[in-house]
């Protein structure tokens, strides 16, 4: 699905990612954890194609193609989805309009006809129920006046509609109370599939109580300093990040 090899990335001439290696197979869930400033968000931005980053070395191969060569919208149409840490507001554009436009641009890319209006309504109402959202949300402007929790739910709703292959969740748990966290986690779990992979970027272990990862990687100072199974997250919760950073420094 995704193969990152020795990736180095600069922001304003400062090296942020210092040689990342990561292999993600279809169906797997990988959690990327690490302290603030370790490069977690940079990684999710570079995978989704946000401007402002310079790749200085290494490669990212997605489904056999060079991901870094693709424009952000092409990545999206090819199945890369980023659930934003801070979803933006778009005044005057209704949620349902954005979703339909997004879905149709993806379908067009795959030479499929535009979605039928009735089918779309049925699909979207299904997903809205799944995420315990009010249907009124569909007709409100994108994220405008939404609470933090509502915005994050809205991200997962978009993910559920667009059915991507590689889902990147950037600090999706931040700003969520425990009930909202459960709903979001259920939404994500319902999307787990043999041909869909997840990269969950998170600071805290608590999201992993609800979405069980196959692998946990610890990012510190621009490098993956430790990888392991789900149990690594618990260890981190107990010991914090400093022991890893220290051990890395000692090597």
């Amino acid at each position, binding site marked *: 699905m995704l193969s990152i090899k020795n990736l180095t990335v600069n922001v304003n001439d400062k090296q942020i990612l210092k040689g990342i290696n990561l292999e993600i197979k279809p169906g797997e869930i990988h959690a990327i954890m690490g302290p603030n400033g370790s490069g977690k968000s940079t990684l999710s931005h570079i995978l*989704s*194609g*946000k*401007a*402002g980053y310079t790749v200085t070395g290494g490669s990212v191969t997605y489904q056999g193609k060079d991901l870094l060569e693709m*424009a*952000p*919208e092409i*990545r*999206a*149409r090819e199945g890369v*989805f*980023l659930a*934003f840490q*801070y*979803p*933006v507001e*778009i*005044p*005057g*554009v209704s949620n349902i*309009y*954005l979703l339909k*436009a*997004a*879905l149709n*641009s*993806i379908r067009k*890319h795959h030479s499929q006809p535009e979605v039928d209006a009735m089918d779309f309504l049925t699909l979207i109402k299904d997903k809205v129920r799944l995420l315990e959202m009010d249907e009124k949300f569909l007709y409100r*402007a994108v994220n405008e006046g939404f609470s933090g929790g509502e915005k994050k739910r809205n991200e997962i709703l*978009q993910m559920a509609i*667009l059915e991507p292959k590689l889902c990147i969740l950037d600090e999706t748990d931040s700003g969520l109370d425990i009930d909202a966290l459960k709903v979001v986690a259920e939404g994500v779990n319902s999307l787990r599939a043999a041909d869909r992979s997840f990269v969950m970027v998170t600071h805290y272990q608590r999201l992993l109580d609800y979405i069980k990862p196959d692998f946990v990687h610890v990012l510190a100072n621009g490098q993956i300093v430790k990888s392991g199974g789900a149990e690594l997250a618990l260890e981190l919760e107990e010991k914090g990040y400093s022991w890893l950073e220290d051990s890395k420094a000692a090597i």
Partner: protein
Amino acid sequence: MSASTQEINNLINQEYKQGFVTELETDTFPIGLDEDVIHRLSKVKNEPEFMLEYRLKAFRHWQTMKSPEWAFVKFDPIDYQAISYYSAPKRKEDGPKSLDEIDPQVLEAYKKLGIPLDEQERLAGIAVDAVFDSVSVATTFKGKLKDAGVIFCPISEALREHPELIKQYLGTVVPHTDNYFAALNAAVFTDGSFVYIPKGVRCPMELSTYFRINAANTGQFERTLIIADEGSHVSYLEGCTAPMRDENQLHAAVVELVAMKDATIKYSTVQNWYPGDKNGLGGIYNFVTKRADCRGENSKVSWTQVETGSAITWKYPSCVLTGDNSIGEFYSVALTNNYQQADTGTKMIHIGKNTRSTIISKGISAGHAQNTYRGLVKVLKSASGARNYTQCDSLLVGDQCGAHTFPYIEVKQPSAQVEHEATTSKISEDQLFFCQQRGLSAEDAVSMIVNGFCKEVFKELPMEFAVEAQALLGLSLEGSVG
């Protein structure tokens, strides 16, 4: 400059699709303006004597005036002696009686613009008056309108057939002394539309005028007069396009609306004059005076405009709220791109009791354009209980453009309520990236964000126009990203 700012800037290189020229034999006056030209103009249009006198009076007044300089626009002085004041496709003495007699080239030009003048092809429900350069070439559905008692014809025809109505109303809303361009228009206007809706009649279809400038080195001076008599109702649309030319062309129109007791006029404009090229060369100077008099009690006038064209727009569709309980509305989207300049807004003059006005203005500025909202809300002492709500939003696309707001509020009546809200925002790179991350191209994303911004205005437009306006906005921003 970051990558996406660059993309936004690129989105601006749009193609103007109505920029073709129609090759025609024309009757065109030599360039220049003096009293002799006005005599000839009045003669060629076969006008009654009072009209010639009105024109001469206006011309003499115009000569004493100076071109206004208060607007936030820059342009070289216009040489009024270098313009031809009359140009018309050659035709028989008394004008075409049916479509068969219209020059097929002219029909073809309108067809290319998507305005077939053949009634069979017209969408049912809209009657069209087509003004080509200085003359009206066709008016459709005249018969059907006549059955309802509605008069919809070129103003030059109205001057001959209904001189009493013209005499009674022309210049009563915008006097010939009003401003520099209105005075010039009164002296040299050539054609435009005339509408009279009799008492109690709800006009059975939308009326529209489609203005086309074709000839080079000519000015277009159109005059529109709409009278809605007591209890009547009319919805009127206008559209405008012109060929691409390197020199600037002047369009100085005057529109007067009169709404009597309980009458409603809805006036919608989609203005897409040639805006000049991406370096600011050429384009139309759109210097227009539009004003409505809500003369009767409970009358209502609603202006909706979508302004995407013209090198310079100078235009303030206004309402004089004379009648008690009368209502004035102004909904505007003004988009400027490349080197376009717009200074546009409205005036709401509250005179009658309990008069109400609403102003919703959306300015979008891209490229190197300057976009100004200028508005006046004036409440006279007589207007007890008057209310105004103004909302004035600006959106910047890219970082080379400007948005300006000059709201003037004068209130002489203590019971009046006047509200003013204003915002300025920028399409953020985060918004753009968010949309792209959902699969939309940068171009579609900008178009979607801009359309969302304009939503409150678009919903005021008649259905078909709303669709056209949205498409036009997309077009006008085409090439500005990606």
